[in-house]
């Protein structure tokens, strides 16, 4: 279980926030699609290796889920850790 600190650390980086923005648009994106979106929509020309490392950080914080299907690998956003943050500070009794 990732701690809340991992979530904030993962969200502290603007490229990782942009990756989440794009994954919020549609589930099940390949690494190629994520890199293409960052490059063409946000002019973020990070290397594929750098994006892959960002995805590892997001996965460790459970902010994304990685699904293998046969020879393909798809990435989706997981909103649960964000909901826990909202529950902690935004819910008023």
């Amino acid at each position, binding site marked *: 279980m990732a701690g809340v600190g991992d979530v904030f650390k993962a969200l502290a980086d603007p490229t990782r926030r942009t990756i989440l923005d794009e994954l919020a648009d*549609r589930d099940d*994106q390949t690494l190629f*699609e994520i890199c293409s979106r960052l*490059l*063409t929509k946000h002019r973020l020309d990070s290397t594929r290796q750098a994006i892959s490392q960002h995805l590892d950080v997001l996965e460790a914080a459970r902010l994304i889920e990685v699904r293998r299907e046969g020879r393909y690998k798809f990435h989706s956003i997981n909103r649960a850790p964000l909901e826990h943050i909202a529950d902690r500070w935004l819910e008023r009794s």
Partner: protein
Amino acid sequence: MRIYVTSVLVDDQAKALAFYTETLGFVKKNDVPLGEASWLTVVSPDDRDGTELLLEPDGHPAAKPFKAALVADGIPFTSFAVDDVDAEYERLRARGVRFTQPPTDMGPARTAVFDDTCGNLIQVVHVAAP
């Protein structure tokens, strides 16, 4: 000097010919036996004298791990131009083609990515006129 042919590395030439002609709609141009394989090319029916696509066997030991790594990361082996990405997506899906990326706007281009059943992902693209 000019580019007359480009290639995709396929795991089976007969299967590849069937997919690239019957499913995608290209037409066979050359089929010259060369040892165990053939010099097997297809062209677009809209451009029969245009650049040929060589359906090249992936028998080299380095080819299969290379192809598998590209597919795992969703990277297309090559890219074909179409007039309407969404129409191609619907047409090919109706023929059972598996897409790893549905039609998506990528800056000035609209793209989609499908599996050619021969070990490759292929991108179709339409770039809007500037």
